[in-house]
């Protein structure tokens, strides 16, 4: 009995969310086939991104709100790829190859900044994301086409500056998904995408069994002790962010090849919030995140996402309510997790002090 109690308390968050989702599913009264189809699609395109958050958590850098930098790197590569009309899986791989050095650079810069803000990594990452977004918009909305000559009609409207708001990725759409699809009723399972996700999960697992992974874990637990043991703390933290940023870039590519259109100025905006919310819903915390939590969280978050509008319509008579509700949930779970994390760190510090007195 105790075992079950512990299992429940340790997984309280995903269980709670499971219940909320069930309520939503019940009220939404959507056909099972439809839900399945949506879930499969969304898990295929989002899991990679959520998994990329695990490494910085292990290295003690908290939730990587700067993940948007990776997404931007991916998008920039994608814009160029579309301009050069790359297509198919070859084109996608080439795009990933193009995005990688860019992501490494962004990750490196981010790492430098985060090392200067020890203890405040998350807020710094978040602000970094906004800043990078601003610069990205400045370049692609103002400089491109005016200061930077660029004339592709598919990407630009010649009369106004900057790139189009939406760019059709017709040559790369489904490049990964489409290689091998298994049908079940209305649902298409993009097998290769799932294999890629599985490979990433495996790689993460294997990574933490290497020397470098062990160093990350040490740094994540206590920077001072790791430093005294001779580990290069700053370098490891930078590496962790670089890894995460590169993975985010690839993750964004997977996401976009599924959707098929690039919302030039918006696609990446909620990347951070939604990926992090998903991770947390799976039961992860600021200091600990596992692969199982990432995947479970992605599933639950997107299930809620799918049923919310319809459930909102059924309960409140307004689909809008459902839409706002799911955003509220995303922000709310992050706020709660952050608060819990801070509160727990404080109580732990106090408790270790308290136990001496009774001796």
């Amino acid at each position, binding site marked *: 009995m105790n075992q079950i109690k512990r299992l429940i308390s340790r997984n309280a968050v995903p269980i709670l969310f499971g219940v909320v989702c069930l309520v939503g599913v019940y009220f939404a009264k959507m056909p099972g086939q439809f839900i399945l189809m949506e879930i499969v699609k969304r898990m295929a395109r989002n899991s990679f991104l959520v998994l990329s958050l695990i490494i910085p958590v292990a290295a003690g850098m908290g939730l990587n709100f700067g993940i948007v930098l990776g997404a931007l790197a991916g998008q920039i590569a994608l814009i160029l790829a579309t301009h050069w009309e790359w297509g198919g899986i070859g084109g996608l791989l080439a795009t990933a190859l193009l995005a990688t050095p860019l992501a490494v650079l962004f990750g490196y810069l981010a790492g430098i900044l985060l090392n200067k803000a020890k203890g405040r990594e998350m807020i710094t990452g978040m602000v970094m994301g906004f800043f990078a977004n601003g610069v990205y918009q400045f370049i692609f909305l103002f400089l491109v086409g005016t200061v930077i000559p660029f004339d592709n009609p598919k990407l630009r409207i010649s009369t106004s500056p900057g790139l189009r708001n939406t760019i059709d990725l017709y040559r790369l759409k489904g490049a990964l998904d489409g290689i091998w699809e298994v049908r079940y009723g209305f649902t298409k399972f993009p097998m290769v995408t799932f294999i890629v996700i599985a490979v990433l999960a495996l790689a993460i697992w294997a990574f933490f069994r290497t*020397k470098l992974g062990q160093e990350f874990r040490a740094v994540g*637990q*206590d920077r001072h002790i*790791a430093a005294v043991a001779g580990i290069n703390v700053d370098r490891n933290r930078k590496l962790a962010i670089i890894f995460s940023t590169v993975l985010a870039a690839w993750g964004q590519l997977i996401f976009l090849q599924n959707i098929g259109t690039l919302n030039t100025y918006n696609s990446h905006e909620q990347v951070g919030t939604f990926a992090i919310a998903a991770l947390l819903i799976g039961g992860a915390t600021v200091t600990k995140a596992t692969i199982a939590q990432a995947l479970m969280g992605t599933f639950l978050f997107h299930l809620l996402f799918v049923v919310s509008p319809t459930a909102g319509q059924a309960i409140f008579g307004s689909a809008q309510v459902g839409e706002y509700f799911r955003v509220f949930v995303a922000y709310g779970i992050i706020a709660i997790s952050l608060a819990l994390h801070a509160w727990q760190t404080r109580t732990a510090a106090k408790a270790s002090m308290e136990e001496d007195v009774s001796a």
Partner: protein
Amino acid sequence: MSVPVLEMRGISKAFFGTQVLKDVNLTVERGQIHCLVGENGAGKSTLMNILFGMPVITNTGGYEGDLFINGEKKSFDSPRAAIETGIGMVHQEFMLLPGFTVTENIKLNRELTKANPFSAIFGEKLETLNRAQMAKDARTALDRLGMTIDEWAPVAGLPVGYLQFVEIAREIDKENLQLLVLDEPTAVLTESEAEQFLEVIKRLAQSGISILFITHRLDEVMAVADRITILKDGELVSTGPKEEYTISQIAELMVGRKVDTASRRTRTRQPSDEVVLQIRGLRVNMPGETLRGIDLDVRKGEILGLGGLAGHGKVGLANGIMGLYPSQGQVLYEGRELPLNNTQAALKAGLAFVSEDRRGVGLVLEDTIANNIVLTSMQSQDRFLKPGFLKLKDEKKILEHAREFIDKFDIRCTGPDQIVRRLSGGNQQKVCLARAFTQQPKLLFVSEPTRGIDVGAKSRVLELIVELNEMGVTVVFTSSELAELRSIADRIAIVYEGRLAGFLPPDAPDVAFGLLMAGKSLEEVAAR
């Protein structure tokens, strides 16, 4: 005669003009247990920091003198360099990662690995951990220490007593370990754990590892030492084989200092016998200075000195009663119960406190001298405010008051508006005292008031305390400097390991103080 594992010759070190070590020699032979003894401030930690290449030494101008390992002259500019030469150190604070297992901690940053296809391409950092082999090594180390802990156990769940052994296991797992430095290792152990610990040490020494053992527990010294070295005030006082010493002798050598009897203040008032502060069963949870149950009576008008080694809790008394750290027990002030864990109540009752942590607790460094002096009074006594419900601060009065004290205490500054951070240590301390005086207290706790300030300021500060006492204020004076206590206190209480060891008159012989501070009881003191 084999070459000594370690020889330190003529080691001297000064920190910003203050001489901390002067011409110290230390020799440790192979397989020897060498105990290093001394009060806090004697220089033991500094000596070890030099040996271990710690940044606090390399960043402050290095040291003078020479270091020889196995006869070879060496100099360490980082802990890593010292580790590679075969020196291991178990620091006072625990360096274990709670989320790792015993094995992972023992092998921290020295893990055993196996190559794999990725490491071939991307470098050896991606080699897989060879957990099986790591566990075997850990097991061997633990067995050598006679520990039965499961090498796969997570460190987080282990009892405190075991942690010390895991740290030692980590050091002896290093193959080239020749010298193991242990800094106050038994401080956190229970008696039986300490006994087990000493056995382990003896076994290690027998297997050829030299041990440099810093401790203040003289019983332990006598139990395991082969050779003893005593430091005092940064100088080598005595060294020799254990057989040449008795506990009393060690105690006396540790603390003996010529007390300048001329500097004993002439007292015009005699303290009464009336008890003004009665403390019963006081326990204070101040990290590093825990009190485990003190019974003490403070007499009205006296200067009560509170002494003892660092970390034994003397500093915790004032902090506990003033409500800065969680406390339990009973305190009666002027016959009435004083609520604990309630700073406001203490302040309102007429108690004041000059903290040992001058910069951290005693001052608001970014604020002006004037504000620092009046702040506590303003908040707890509603003074220095203009009349009216808004309670605006009376800037004029504040400046006037500050000027008064700057004159009276001779605080060297550019004016009452100067930021306190810029002042010298001695002048900062005067500001703290000015703040206490401003509160017009009936009982004052003063802790370590002369720490880190120059000689001239030191005597002025002590004078001010005596002046305050002459005006009728009872003073409880906590200090690590025995000489200070003996020069102005009426009687001195010694705290040992969180409890009261006993009272001594200021003119009691050095030996008595040394023994009480080392844990011997008054009866034993009287017997010697």
